[in-house]
């Protein structure tokens, strides 16, 4: 027994070290963003919000933020708008070629993002369309659709078909059945799917770098551009804002979901 306890404490220590390793660089970004010194590196020489103030006066960064938020929201709405009906089809109906089509819709996960970026850009170029916000949007929908589909499907499997059949046999039409029965039961998964689509879209850089232009930048693309002239305290400050935003959104959503569940 004693041996097991020491084994377990080693496992605990190892886990702790792995997570310290994982979070130290991120904490360093946050700490350094408050360093008033010019070069964005250690040692800390005081504490100031000056880089955040400077960020808030930088109109290209504010534009990038606005772009990212609009893009992420549109992506979330479109990806769930496409993904939820598809998930219904796969779980509620039998038809030819189901397996194949399901794999096809999930395929974008398995295509390397760099290839996805090249492929869509090449296609748009062949159509002689300029790079635009629409290109970013359709690209992000393709990137996020498989995740929405997987999340909604996983939840839909657990919702008994009998509820829907009961509503139908009591005279509800299919749309009413969806609105009154399926949707409320499915809402947590739809919400999770939207959230996931939003965060993927908000974070993505690998494929987005192919599609973005100077006028249509997202925050990660902007950060990539700023990195060209080495790391600066401004990048650390922007990173801190991103971290706070992308961590607090799911936390807040989770909190809301829990309150909502309790309220019922």
């Amino acid at each position: 027994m004693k041996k097991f306890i020491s084994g377990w404490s080693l496992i605990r220590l190892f886990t702790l070290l792995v997570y310290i390793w994982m979070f130290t660089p991120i904490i360093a970004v946050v700490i350094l963003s408050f360093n008033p010194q010019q070069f964005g590196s250690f040692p800390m020489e005081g504490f100031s919000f000056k880089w955040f103030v400077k960020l808030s006066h930088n109109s290209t960064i504010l534009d990038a933020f606005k772009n990212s938020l609009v893009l992420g929201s549109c992506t979330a709405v479109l990806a769930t708008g496409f993904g939820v009906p598809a998930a219904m089809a796969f779980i509620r109906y039998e038809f030819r070629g189901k397996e194949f089509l399901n794999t096809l819709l999930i395929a974008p996960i398995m295509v390397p993002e760099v290839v996805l970026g090249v492929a869509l850009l090449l296609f748009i170029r062949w159509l002689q369309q300029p790079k635009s916000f629409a290109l970013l949007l359709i690209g992000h929908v393709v990137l996020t659709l498989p995740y929405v589909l997987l999340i909604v499907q996983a939840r839909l499997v657990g919702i008994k078909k009998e509820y829907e059949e009961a509503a139908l046999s009591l005279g509800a039409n299919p749309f009413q059945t969806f609105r009154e029965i399926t949707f409320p039961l499915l809402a947590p998964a739809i919400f999770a799917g939207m959230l996931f689509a939003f965060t993927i879209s908000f974070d993505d850089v690998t494929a987005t770098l192919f599609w973005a232009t100077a006028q249509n930048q997202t925050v990660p693309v902007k950060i990539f551009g700023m990195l060209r002239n080495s790391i600066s305290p401004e990048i650390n400050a922007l990173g801190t804002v991103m971290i706070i935003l992308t961590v607090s959104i799911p936390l807040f959503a989770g909190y809301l979901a829990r309150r909502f569940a309790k309220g019922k």
Partner: protein
Amino acid sequence: MKDKSWKPWALLAPSLTAVFFLLVVPICFVIVYSFWLRAPSGADIPAFQFGNYAKFFEDFFYPSILLSTLRVAFETVILCLIFGYIPAYFFYKTTSRFKPFLMLIVMLPFWISFIIRTLSWINILGDSGLINHLLLKFHVISSPLAMLYNEGAVIMGLLQYLLPFMILNIYVSLDGIDKSLTEAAKSLGCTEWQAFKEVTLPLSMPGVSAGCLLVFVLTCGTYLPPMILGGPGNEMIANLIFKRVIGTLDWPFGSAISVILMVLLMVIVYTYNRYMGIGQIFKTLSNES
């Protein structure tokens, strides 16, 4: 019962159209373009020839980048496995009342932007980064150590990006194991270690192999860590594609490299699917919410 066979198709129509026109067709274009010629003026000329592929394999330059991509991907998989299994096992086994909080920590890295996680290593490994700062301060060294812009730094970045995927995959697989199985093994006289080795470890293999495949595929398709943390010698195959397409606008050659990368990954995924089944990855991904 009236015929409802059109219904699933109506529900599927939007997604199928999107994936067909935004994924299938564009990838066909990549394949077609990979046979085209590039005029010295930079214009693309429709053709059917294997020059772009020949160019890739004509000397050792490009294949060596392909090989080093595979080597880095392999190293990353092994390191993710070593540094991922034990924490996953910890999260599975722990009886702490802080478990919901611990699970939050597992998910946290997924919510932090990839580019920030990558560039954050500059603050640690750079000439005036944390490590050099501390070593200089305590007079261990007299001039900063060069830790950035080498393969080690690239692997650090990749590891930080991919370790959460590995931990989550293994955790989901461990979490699905019936705990009474290890209890049974122990009541039959197994030690804790034997029970782990004979029962838990084999049953967690689907998660392990799904994690390995995911890490491998994601490593092969990314160019950011080598670009930000690597030096000129640490380029990977995705960097070549990025440079050809965005840098020199050489679409036909960029397409050919993309096709080579896709074929390589398809062979790997196919082999994996043959032996392990692809379902496990999707199972974990749908758990990520």
